[in-house]
């Protein structure tokens, strides 16, 4: 059921070190203030405190600066003098200082940085908790966070040894890599001679594969995220799940034994599994019937606590399953999945378009409607102009005219576009197939500049056999995430992108592969089986699950994940939406 722990699996590095490091840094920063009285969350309310000092731990965002300024200025008006300290995490941006100056409080606050950028969410998952990365980079073209990524990579390589093999695909990946290399060069000598703990690192841009992120999730963990929103590795289960009148915050990671077994499972298997487990649990409880005093004593002291714990977790997850199922039936889930499959495979496009149109007319959900439109656009290389106009009009009528701005954003990000003349699928496919055979360099450059923003999804998926009716259905129903193909061995085995040239060209973004033999020599065979995958722009639980499965299936590899943030299709759509739903 779960991925049983294989005795030959390579050992994962200890990421709890990252937490300790961060904690120490923060304590040091706070200690400079002498005493920390209370911790307030930065919200839109005035902070009521009688302390002589206020310390703000914030993200470097303008709105946070305005909040702080309003507080400080309010104090000034009230004639109060206090000391103010602002700690920026993970770093301070010049724009923030500028705003503080503009607000007239620059001289009143002292600033510091808490370079905490890596939060271990699980034994194999690190998050930078930067959901804003996606919008800032992929919509606004702002590269401010690439430095943060490079710093994080540098920290990782300092702690866990250098990485002998580096690969990447995507423009952002390339930039991050180059910046990171520069950092390494500047601080050369820190990692010299160390034994690498992780053999490979793979950087990926989110926009190289939007489709996977936009598909409905079918593994349990993904569905929990979709339904309840997992934040920083924990989730709030409301009363309908806890079967009481209280909400409960639950930490979801490998330590939750029940969760660990079902997290990567296809949802259709989960309920049956949980029921079985419930029966087993009951059987365990029942054992006490035939016990004597001594056995009973033993039972109560040793086992009961564990059983009770398991019972509690089980009932929570069963409750969660019920919520998820209720939501699905309400949304006519079957129909939805059918439409998604049709889009991926390229069949019945008219029917799918009608389905989406109806979805919008019925005002089912603004985010879901957008998601479906984007899927249609990406798989079809843009909507035909008639459909684009008609669906857009209907969307604005159903969900609000201000979404004109949302459409503009989606267009810029390449998520929802209109086909230009000569962009119809057949035209593109013939262009692309011609390119692959035509080696004349000049022609390729020209043709590619015209294909610049096209996703070429259909061509790629055909080349790599991504859409499968049966076979591996992990993570995403009936569809293999593009990453799996890259990480499934070819690139790693050959230490290069050879053999996947065509695909890379179709993706039309930068790629790189670099092996440092001096480092590789020092790497143990164990560490060479460990691969750190870095998602720039976010990744979904489904993708993580698919890769976990892939690692074990393809023979003895283990993946570790570093993402700018854990995401899902709803979050991606919300990031593009100009209007807060």
């Amino acid at each position: 059921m779960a991925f049983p722990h294989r005795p030959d699996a390579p050992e994962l590095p200890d990421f709890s070190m990252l937490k300790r490091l961060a904690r120490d840094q923060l304590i040091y920063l706070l200690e400079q203030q002498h005493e920390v009285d209370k911790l307030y969350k930065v919200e839109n309310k005035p902070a009521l405190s009688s302390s002589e000092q206020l310390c703000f731990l914030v993200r470097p965002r303008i709105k946070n600066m305005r909040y702080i300024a309003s507080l400080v200025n309010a104090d000034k008006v009230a004639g109060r003098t206090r000391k103010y300290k602002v700690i920026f995490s993970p770093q301070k941006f010049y724009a923030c200082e500028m705003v503080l100056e503009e607000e007239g409080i620059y001289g009143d606050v002292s600033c510091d940085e808490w370079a905490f950028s890596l939060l271990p969410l699980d034994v194999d998952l690190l998050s930078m908790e930067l959901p804003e990365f996606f919008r800032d980079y992929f919509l606004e073209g702002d590269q401010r966070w690439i430095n943060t990524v490079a710093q994080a990579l540098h920290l990782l390589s300092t702690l866990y040894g250098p990485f002998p093999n580096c690969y990447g695909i995507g423009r952002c990946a390339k930039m991050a890599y180059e910046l990171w290399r520069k950092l390494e060069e500047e601080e050369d000598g820190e990692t010299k001679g160390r034994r690498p703990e992780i053999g490979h690192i793979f950087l990926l841009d989110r926009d190289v594969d939007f489709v996977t992120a936009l598909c409905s999730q079918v593994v349990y963990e993904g569905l929990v995220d979709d339904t309840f929103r997992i934040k920083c590795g924990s989730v709030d289960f409301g009363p309908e799940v806890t079967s009481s009148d209280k909400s409960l915050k639950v930490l979801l990671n490998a330590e939750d034994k029940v969760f660990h077994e079902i997290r990567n499972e296809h949802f259709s298997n989960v309920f049956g599994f949980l029921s079985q487990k419930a029966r087993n649990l009951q059987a365990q409880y029942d054992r006490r019937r035939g016990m004597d005093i001594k056995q009973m004593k033993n039972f109560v002291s040793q086992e009961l606590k564990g059983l009770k714990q398991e019972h509690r977790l089980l009932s929570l997850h069963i409750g969660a399953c019920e919520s998820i199922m209720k939501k699905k039936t309400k949304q006519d889930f079957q129909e939805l999945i059918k439409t998604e499959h049709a889009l991926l495979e390229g069949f019945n496009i008219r029917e799918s378009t009608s389905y989406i149109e109806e979805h919008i007319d019925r005002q089912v959900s603004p985010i879901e409607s957008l998601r479906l439109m984007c899927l249609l656009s990406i798989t079809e290389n843009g909507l035909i102009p008639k459909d684009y106009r008609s669906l857009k009009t209907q969307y604005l009528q159903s969900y609000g005219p201000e979404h004109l701005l949302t459409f503009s954003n989606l267009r810029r990000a390449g998520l929802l576009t209109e086909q230009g003349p000569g962009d119809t699928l057949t035209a593109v496919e013939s262009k692309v197939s011609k390119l692959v055979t035509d080696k004349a360099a000049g022609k390729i450059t020209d043709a590619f500049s015209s294909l610049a923003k096209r996703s070429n999804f259909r061509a790629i998926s055909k080349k790599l056999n991504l859409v499968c009716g049966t076979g591996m259905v992990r993570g995403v129903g009936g569809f293999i995430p593009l990453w799996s193909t890259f990480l499934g061995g070819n690139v790693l085995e050959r230490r290069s992108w050879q053999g996947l040239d065509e695909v890379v060209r179709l993706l039309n973004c930068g790629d790189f592969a670099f092996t440092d033999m001096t480092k590789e020599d020092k790497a143990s065979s164990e560490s060479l089986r460990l691969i750190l995958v870095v998602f720039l722009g976010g990744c979904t639980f489904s993708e993580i699950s698919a890769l976990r499965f892939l690692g074990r299936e393809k023979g003895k590899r283990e993946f570790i994940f570093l993402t700018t943030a854990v995401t899902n299709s709803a979050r991606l759509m919300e990031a593009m939406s100009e209007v807060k739903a």
Partner: protein
Amino acid sequence: MNRTKGDEEEYWNSSKFKAFTFDDEDDELSQLKESKRAVNSLRDFVDDDDDDDLERVSWTGEPVGSRTRPGSFQSLSDALSDTPAKSYAPELGRPKGEYRDYSNDWSPSDTVRRLRKGKVLIFLKRTLSKEILFRELEVRQIALRHLIHFLKEIGDQKMLLDLFRFLDRTEELALSHYREHLNIQDPDKRKEFLKTCIGLPFSAEDSAHIQDHYTLLERQIIIEANDRHLESAGQTEIFRKHPRKASILNMPLVTTLFYSCFYHYTEAEGTFSSPVNLKKTFKIPDKQYVLTALAARAKLRAWNDVDALFTTKNWLGYTKKRAPIGFHRVVEILHKNNAPVQILQEYVNLVEDVDTKLNLATKFKCHDVVIDSCRDLKDRQQLLAYRSKVDKGSAEEEKIDALLSSSQIRWKN
């Protein structure tokens, strides 16, 4: 563009306008030494004396080098150039003196104007190869995006709009201006603001959308005022029976239509609040209209109205039921609103696809339809199975028995 020179000077020289430059990260660029130097030589066009004031900031936003408080930045070309170090291009081999007229006579705004007109670019074009020039512009694109994002973040709307205007990015200009409406809460003020958006350089389709937005809000304000009055007067039945839960202001069109079908269904086309008026004004397609009207009337359990929605008279005077949305949809909506079985049954019967019809009939317990469908499909087994689901001794049971024993039907199973 009718800006005075004074405005431009102010714009370029204001302390608010911060520069973003890049450390020379781009590998390819650093490889091409000519380009680096050539770009550096652009700085010759700018007054050298004010160099110290130029705050240079890395692309992360961190100030590079000294932390002096920023003065004005000098020119767009400087701001957007990718030059940490200054050096001259020996290959170009021309003494600085030859560009005296460039550096001294040009004010920053001049530089930019000429840049736009291509004079500087022509110079570059003559001395640099095409690839390098293209890359220079590309680099500027990145810097430009940072600038735009920054201006958006700090909310400097005026500067942002000026920038777009300057760059001739008319559509983005229009959209940025439009975006402001989200910050205006008062409906009348928002309506006035939307009016100012109408003439802006949107695309043709978007212009129509903006016009619709304005018209919609205008109507909503009228309807809202009127209905609030009616509601408080307490004389209108519909408002007494179903008090309004929220204001109609700023709701999407479809929601407004639903509201109108709910509270103002029978009104003539002449009034702003009538559904027919909305349909006409906003060119709402039949499908959407019928769907929404159905949802509203079904909620009110006004089955006659539902009936009328689908009934059309043909030229012979016979009535017939048609639906632009598929009767299975109709049935679902009726069911959701707890329509009585007879009504449901009638519409289930109208579903064209027999399998769907049978499924829905079974799901909603429309016995007669199930029985008739089984008969039509000549499916004995299913009919037999269904017998156990009907009440003992009921008319349906009798019907089933009659059919099962009928010799007229050639059952297939």
